[in-house]
């Protein structure tokens, strides 16, 4: 399974270097290095962060509906980026947009633990996350309603739908370190997540207190998903669907899903991004469809099929 995912990721990555707005092939080495390479690497990294974070959060919150969006971290990142955009910071200083996104994710993570209390449990964290998401989307809607002109409104809306068009090596340099650190944090949580499957008391009696596991899960997700949202916009559904795709094959033990979820997230987003690039070449479209739309289009049918197999 792991080998298959690695092979699929490498294959899609190679395709990603060969395909772009200029068509299939290698038109110019600068296009490959400056445009296709960062875009392909970002798709893999952002997807891996989303998939891994989804698997960790579903395990930690013991809830099949959990995903990074549920905790409001993605919403916070989107709000931070939109604020940077709205106040014209990003026009004067390009990295302000992703930096705003990272700051938004960090603030959301702090607020999450402020709201959930000092010893968070799964229900308190979910409720705080839902409150935070609602707040973030309300403030986003406010920013949209007060947008200075129709052009800015369209730009923000399109950015919110997610995409990797025209991302540079600079974006990669900005997003890769937090995503990698976040993923390293998340990958170490396997035993704590397994212990939590037997309940919070048992986890604690096994030496893995729930509060500590959830704290690191939120910090790791804030880094991995926050940085991903900061450079790629809101890409939903990857974190939700990836663990569900893997469980029928790998079983339900949370720790076993983690490395595979990172790989499967990367493969899913690489595939979605390739489709996004190919769409204007194959279909009469004036521009690429948003990445977040494609991930939902790809993932939803799988989820529907799995939903029918889940025992009552």
């Amino acid at each position, binding site marked *: 399974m792991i080998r298959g995912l690695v092979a699929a990721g490498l294959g899609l990555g190679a395709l990603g270097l060969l395909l772009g707005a200029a068509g299939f092939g290698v038109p110019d080495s600068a296009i490959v290095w400056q445009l296709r390479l960062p875009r392909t690497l970002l798709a893999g990294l952002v997807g891996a962060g989303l998939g891994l974070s989804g698997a960790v959060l579903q395990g930690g919150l013991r809830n099949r509906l959990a995903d990074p969006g549920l905790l409001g971290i993605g919403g916070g990142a989107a709000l931070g980026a939109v604020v940077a955009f709205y106040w014209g910071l990003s026009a004067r200083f390009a990295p302000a947009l992703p930096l705003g996104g990272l700051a938004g994710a960090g603030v959301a993570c702090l607020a999450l633990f402020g709201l959930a209390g000092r010893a968070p449990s799964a229900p308190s964290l979910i409720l705080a996350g839902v409150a935070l998401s609602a707040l973030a989307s309300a403030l986003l809607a406010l920013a949209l309603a007060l947008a200075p002109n129709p052009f800015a409104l369209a730009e923000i809306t399109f950015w919110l739908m997610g995409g990797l068009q025209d991302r540079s090596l600079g974006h990669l340099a900005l997003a890769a370190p937090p995503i990698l650190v976040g993923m390293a944090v998340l990958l170490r949580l396997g035993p704590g997540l*397994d212990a939590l499957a037997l309940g919070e008391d048992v986890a604690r009696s096994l030496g893995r207190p729930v509060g500590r596991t959830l704290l690191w899960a939120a910090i790791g997700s804030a880094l991995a998903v926050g940085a991903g949202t900061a450079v790629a916009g809101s890409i939903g559904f990857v974190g939700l669907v990836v663990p569900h795709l893997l469980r029928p094959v790998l079983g339900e*033990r949370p720790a076993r899903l983690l490395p595979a979820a990172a790989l499967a997230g990367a493969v899913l987003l690489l595939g979605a991004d390739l489709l996004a690039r190919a769409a204007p070449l194959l279909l009469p479209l004036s521009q690429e469809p948003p990445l977040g739309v494609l991930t939902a289009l790809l993932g939803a049918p799988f989820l529907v099929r799995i939903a029918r197999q889940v*025992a009552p």
Partner: protein
Amino acid sequence: MIGLNAPTIRLHGRAVLHDIRFTALPGQMVALCGPNGAGKSTLLRGLAGLLPGLPGRDPKQVAYLPQGAGCAWGLTVADVVALGRLPHGDRATGPIDRAMALCGLEALRHTRVDRMSGGEVRRAMLARTLATEAATLLLDEPTADLDPAAAHAMMALLRAQAHAGAAVIVVLHALDLARDYADRMVVLNGGRIVADAAPASALPAAAAAFGLPVGLDPQPRLLPPAAA
């Protein structure tokens, strides 16, 4: 040796236990009995180091099984039992296989716990606590969803663990099981220990706590297996 000395234990601002002085010795099987709300589970959680303000325990030395323990995911029996090795940071096959054999789980090794009967799940959860090879076993109502034969089998298994050197503390509603298998019966009522003695001597106090009479029953009733 595991014990708890506390003048009062509060939970959510309410005093639930008073004047608790309790110590269990290795090689001893202790039954905690008493009416609903007497504080049995709280005392057990206190012993397990799970109450705020009380000292924590070494997870290698104390294994705890809560009431009605289940599993959030469809883990296999082998996965669940292997979690008992988490405090040791290994997946040592010796203790895992021994625990599964003791609980009669070999044939179910690769079965998912969400596709098993209540009694089978209970045995898998017990095997998880045995795999830790802890000096102390704390079990809350381990026989609650077992049929009479399975309940007797589990009590015999726990008594064998105690007599092999472990301190076994079991919360039990079934006074007859406590009487048949425990070395010592601790009766709780209203958050206080009202009796602490050999089961035959503590039984009247337990009956009084429930408001039931004690006497000899001339009617036929189920007995423990002849070997027990």
